[in-house]
């Protein structure tokens, strides 16, 4: 990393992530560079799927048990609570909400993404475990929709994350979201939903796009 880029990165670092000295319990001074010491700097590897009937069976289980990260990124999140209410009841289809990215397999991008949110979405996505799927809700994730000329919202999500299913509309009705879930299930069962591996294979391209718009990239390249 060049000298200039280094100072640029330091400018945006949170105070606790800057290089500093920690005094240990026995009075020893320890130099800490949190970005390298506290975070994992390795890059992920492609995890090849199994072959044959076993993978088919596992894909069936993955499709029938979709754990969604409860992260309402945009206005589409107003239609997510009704999805789990008496009228629509997505639990019937094995869809459930999980509050932590480690345990969830589906990331719903509910609407437009401001740049500041995109950064958190990328972190959440990378913290989820392979295999993982992305559902993009609303026209604004497809081509910018209502906010196509806004200076702070992205226009196409597929340049930053691999998207499995798009659900068009502004905003999509719960029925449309349920249909989207069923589409995702079909895709998983047919073995085509390898977005996580695709992301790792094209990591450089995705990272270049992400870093182009996230000007204050103050985190490791891949956030485990």
């Amino acid at each position: 990393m060049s000298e200039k880029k280094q100072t640029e990165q330091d400018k945006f670092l949170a105070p606790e992530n800057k290089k500093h000295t920690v005094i240990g319990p026995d009075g020893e001074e320890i130099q800490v560079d949190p970005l390298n010491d506290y975070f994992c700097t390795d890059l992920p590897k492609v995890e090849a799927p199994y072959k044959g009937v076993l993978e088919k069976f596992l894909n069936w289980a993955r499709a029938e048990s979709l754990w969604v990260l409860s992260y309402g990124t945009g206005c589409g999140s107003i239609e997510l609570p009704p999805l789990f209410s008496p009228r629509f009841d997505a639990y019937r289809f094995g869809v459930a909400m999980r509050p932590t990215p480690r345990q969830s397999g589906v990331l719903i991008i509910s609407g437009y993404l401001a740049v500041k949110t995109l950064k958190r979405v990328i972190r959440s996505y990378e913290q989820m475990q392979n295999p993982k799927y992305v559902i993009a809700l609303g026209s604004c994730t497809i081509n910018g929709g209502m906010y196509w000329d806004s200076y702070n919202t992205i226009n196409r999500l597929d340049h930053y994350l691999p998207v499995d299913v798009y659900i068009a509309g502004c905003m999509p009705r719960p029925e449309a979201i349920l249909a989207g879930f069923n589409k995702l299930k079909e895709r998983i069962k047919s073995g085509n939903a390898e977005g996580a591996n695709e992301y790792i294979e094209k990591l450089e391209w995705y990272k270049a796009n992400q870093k182009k718009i996230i000007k204050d990239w103050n985190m490791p390249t891949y956030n485990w």
Partner: protein
Amino acid sequence: MNIFPRIVFVLLGLFIVLNWGLIMAGIIRKIIARLGMRRGIKVFQPYINLIKNYSIRSQLSHGVMFYLGPVFRLSGGVGIFLFMPLIYGSDYWSNFSFTGDLILITYFMFFGMLGMALGAGEGGHPYSAIGISRGLAQFTAIEVPMTLAILSIAIQYQTLSISEIVAAQQGGIQNWTMVTNPLATIAAMLSFLGAMGHSPFNVVMAPQENPVGPPTEYHGTFLGVLQTNRAILHVIEAVLYMNLFFGGASNWGVLIIKTFLIYFWSVFVGMVFPRFRVDQSIPWFLKIPLVIGIAAIVVFII
């Protein structure tokens, strides 16, 4: 009985308990859904979730203890199972029950918690740490009335063997501890609410206040092990209460019905109450159930 057939029956019993635990979780979720005017999940959804969790391809580890946390938790659950007599009067289904098993089982109930706490602490997530401190503090408070109730029963029946306690309750509902020692039963059933992790005592793993407590960092196979343990633990703790207070079971059918009803008691309360903060739940346990527990002992000493 010879040791090898006994091991086979223990494994078979573990398999039955695990399956009943998963199906019970499904049925309970279904009932909760009906209460909320929904159709709810499929009854077999817990199985699918379990398979899915074991099928996650990538696993992250935060160190050796992080691996061992779920293992400790599972060995805590299986440990309770190993020394718990399941069916009264059956030599095949009394596992490794011996004369002092009540003490060992109360120890195993805490063992899993501690192991999990060490493992989750290594995860490094602040919410894990908050959840652990809440969980251990609350569980200590839960244990007090529970232990008092167990002591009361031990004094009442003059034994520390679960099999003998069950044997003493045979011969009709009027011999159950529930009738002969109601104070101890009340104290124990109140502490059961806390042990099962439903409202109002689930601030440890509350999704809103503290997502989601100790298991925040656990995923994939680790989470699968935790889920397996939960299925076993819920049934086996209900079996413990059934043996101590509700006359035990003379066959599998009775066991299934009684464990379901005992477990449903905690769900039933949990549905209509929000959760306490941890600084409210600990005083609660140290007030009403504690007083009832002490009274239960005093009655039998006098």
